[in-house]
């Protein structure tokens, strides 16, 4: 049985051409009707317990649809995020 066209050979990745020519669509390349943009507001302090986030100023800006501030941050486990260290 010598009909193996692929096994044992180096084949280009299936999406290599799209990526090499710029046609590939990454998540950041997509635009959808009415699409909103989100941004993560990080604590400026490491290991800080987030008790409250005041979004009233941000919400006054034209185009801002709102923020998602979850109270559970203060009650449950505190998640730590730091830039560039995953």
């Amino acid at each position, binding site marked *: 049985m010598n009909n193996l066209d692929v096994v*044992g*050979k*180096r084949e*280009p*990745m299936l*999406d*290599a*051409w*799209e*990526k*090499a*020519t*710029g*046609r*590939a*669509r*990454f998540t*950041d*390349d997509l*635009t959808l009707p009415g699409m909103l943009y989100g941004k993560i507001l990080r604590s400026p302090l490491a290991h800080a317990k987030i008790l409250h986030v005041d979004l009233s100023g941000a919400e006054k800006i034209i185009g801002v649809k709102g923020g998602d501030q979850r109270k559970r941050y203060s009650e449950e486990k505190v998640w730590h995020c730091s830039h560039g260290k995953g």
Partner: protein
Amino acid sequence: MKRVIKLHINGEEFEVLTEVHKTLLEVLREDLGLTGTKRGCDLGTCGACTVLIEGKPFLSCLTLAVDVQGKKIVTIEGLSQDGEPHSLQKAFVKKGAIQCGFCTPGMILTAKAFLDENPHPSEGEVKKAISGNLCRCTGYVKIVEAILSVAPSPSPLPRGERVWERGKGDSHE
């Protein structure tokens, strides 16, 4: 403040009504839908946004669109000629120099500008030329191989050739 600016991109003239503070990267991606040019760091560090302006590589995230009116701009979408991919694009595909593909457009354009100036580079020169383009998959070996395959070195260096692979046929190239 918006203004109509004229851009010469991939052999076509574009008139774009856009804010004067926008970078070339933003105009390409947001106003013209040319999303092949990638926004990586947006700080001029990663090279993903590289485009060719008058044949030279520039970081489009640090270039104001209004400043490059009338100049010849080439993005990854414009590198193919009449539907035929550029030899570098073919080499990247063939050599497996593409993983996630995010650095690829900038990497290929940087390599093109470099090879146009130095058609017979050494491996070290290639590495130096692409030092401003970061690949977070860290697939640099294949990228350097792909670029060198398009521009064979004048001296037959044993680069990339491993002694134990000699005489093994072409199953591993």
